[in-house]
C-alpha cells in the first residue's frame, strides 16, 4: 500500500507545484500542498498498517506477527551438528579457525576413541567468541565435514561477556534445537516477512 502511494505521487506530473511562479497565489502559498500533506498523515493515522514487528521475547517465534522472520541466507548464531552416533561431527581439522578473519574460534583437539573409524581426532574444547565474531560465515564454508553452521537466530542475548563465549556444550545444544526445527527460517516467498495489520 505504501509503495503504491509513493508511486502514484511520482506518476502524476501534472499537479501544481508551489515553486512555479506562474501558479496562483493560493498554490504558491503552499496551502493546497499543506492540506494534501495533512490529509496524507491523517490517512496514515487512521488506516495505516504497522510496518514494524513488536519484539516479544515470550511469543511464538514462528509467528511472523510476533517475530521478525529473517530472509534466506541470513547468518546468525552458530551451532555444531552431531553425526549418526549422536557425537559431535567436528573432526578438529582447524579449517574453520584458520578461515576465521576475526580469530574468534578456539579449538583444542584430542585423539578420537579407537572405535571411531571415520576420524583420527575430535575436539576437546571448541569455543566461539561471539563478541569477536563478525558473522561472515567463512567457518561454515570452510568446514570439510559440514559440522558447523550458522542459524537464523538474530536475537543473541547475554548479560555478561562470559556468556557470549559459546563452548561446545552450548553449540551442540543449539544444534539439537536447530535439528528439531525450532529455529526460525525465512518466511515463504517474502524477503522481508509479511506485514501485520494489527494495532495495540
Amino acid at each position, binding site marked *: 500500500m*505504501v509503495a503504491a502511494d509513493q508511486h502514484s505521487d511520482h506518476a502524476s506530473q501534472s499537479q501544481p507545484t508551489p515553486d512555479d511562479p506562474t501558479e496562483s497565489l493560493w498554490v504558491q502559498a503552499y496551502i493546497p500542498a*499543506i492540506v494534501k*500533506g*495533512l490529509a*496524507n*498523515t*491523517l490517512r*496514515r*493515522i487512521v488506516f*495505516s*498498517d*504497522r*510496518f*514494524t514487528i*513488536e519484539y516479544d521475547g515470550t511469543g511464538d517465534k514462528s509467528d511472523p506477527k510476533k517475530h521478525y522472520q529473517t530472509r534466506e541466507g541470513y547468518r546468525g548464531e552458530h551451532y555444531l551438528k552431531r553425526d549418526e552416533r549422536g557425537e559431535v561431527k567436528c573432526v578438529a581439522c582447524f579449517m574453520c579457525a584458520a578461515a576465521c578473519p576475526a580469530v574468534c574460534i578456539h579449538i583444542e583437539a584430542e585423539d578420537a576413541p579407537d572405535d571411531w573409524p571415520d576420524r583420527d581426532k575430535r575436539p576437546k574444547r571448541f569455543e566461539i567468541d561471539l563478541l569477536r565474531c563478525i558473522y561472515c560465515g567463512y567457518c561454515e564454508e570452510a568446514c570439510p565435514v559440514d559440522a558447523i553452521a550458522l542459524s537464523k537466530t538474530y536475537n543473541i542475548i547475554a548479560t555478561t561477556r562470559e556468556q557470549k563465549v559459546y563452548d561446545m556444550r552450548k553449540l551442540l545444544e543449539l544444534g539439537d534445537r536447530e535439528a528439531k526445527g525450532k529455529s526460525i527460517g525465512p518466511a515463504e516467498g517474502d524477503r522481508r516477512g509479511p506485514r501485520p495489520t494489527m*494495532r*495495540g
Partner: protein
Amino acid sequence: MSWVDYIFVYAIPLIAVLMVPMNLPVGLIYLERRICAFIQDRAGPNRVDFPLIGRAGGLLPGGLLQPMADAIKLLTKEDITPARADKVLFNLAPLFSLVPPFVAFAVIPFSRPYAYTDTAGAVHPVAMQAANPEIGMLFILAVLSLSAYGIAFGGWASNSRYSLLGSLRASAQMISYEVGMGLALLSVFMMTGALNLQDIVTYQAEHGWYVLTLPGALAFLMFMICAFAENNRLPFDMSECESELVGGFHTEYSAMKFGMFFQGEYIAMTAMSAIMVALFFGGWHIWGMEPNPATGWAASSLWVVLFSIAVFFGKLLVFIWLYIQVRWTLPRFRYDQLMDLGWKGVIPISIGILVFQAIWLAWKEGNF
C-alpha cells in the same frame, strides 16, 4: 462570605484551572509519540500498562503509563552542569521556559460563568478561570513573551556553540513573530471591543464565532502561523534544529532540567491552543447553547456550565491534535525563509486585515 463560599468561589476554579497545565502535557507526550508512530507506520510506546488492570482486557490502548516511566527516568538521571556554564542562568533558564505558560492559563476562561449565591445572599459569577482581569489578553501576551528568556538564557549559559546558535535563532524568531501575532490579534480586539477573554468569548457567543467572518479567518490563519513559531514547533523549530544543531538551546541540558524545557513546550502549546479557541472559535460556546433571554449569561444551570467545559476541551484537543500532526507532516523552514515569511508575509497581511477590518466596521456603523 463564609469559608464554604471561599472554597466555591475561589479555591475550586483555581484548582480546576491549575490541573489543566499540570496534567495535560502528560497525556500530550503520550499522544504525540503515538500519533508520530502511526504516521510513520510504527507501533509507538505500548509496553507500560497500568499495574493490576493492564489494558483492561483490550479496552485501553497500550503504553498509557509511558509518560510516568519517562518522568521517573528524567528524575533519576544524572544532572550534568557543563563545567564552564554560567551556573545561575543555566539553572534559571528551565524555569523561564516552564513558568510563563503556566501563568498564562490563569486568565483563560474554560467555562461560561455560573451564578453562585453565597450564604449572605450575594451572587458571584464563578467560571473555570483563575482570574478575570480586564487586560486578560494583554496579560497573556506579556507573560508568554517571557518564555523567550528561557531559550535565550539556556543557550547563552550553556557555553556551547550549538546552544548559542539555537537560542540566537529562536530569540530572533520569537521576537519577529510576536509583531505579527500582536497585529493579528488587534483585529479581534477591534471587533469585540474587549481585552477581557470572558468578554471576547461572550461576544462571539452572541455574534457568531470570529473565525467565521472573512477578516476573522485570515487573522486566525496569521495567528496560527505565529503561534506555531512562538512555540518553536515544527515547521518553525529553529531553536532545536536536530539535523544541524544537535538539540539547539537545550543541547547541554540533562535530566529534569531538560524535562522542564520539554514540559514547558507542551504547556505553551496547550496555552496557545486555548487562546486560539477562546479568541477565534468561540471558546466554550457551541450552537444550541444560547442564554436564557430573561436572565442573560450569568444564570445557567451547573450542568450547562460543566457542558461548556467539555466543549472548550473538545475544541482544545482539535488544536493540540493539529499541532502534533503538523509537526510530523511539514519539514522545517530554512532560517531565511522563516524571516521572509514573518516580515514579508505575516506582518503585511496582518496590517491589511486590520485596515480592512477598520474600514468595514466604520462602514457598518455609518461613519463614512
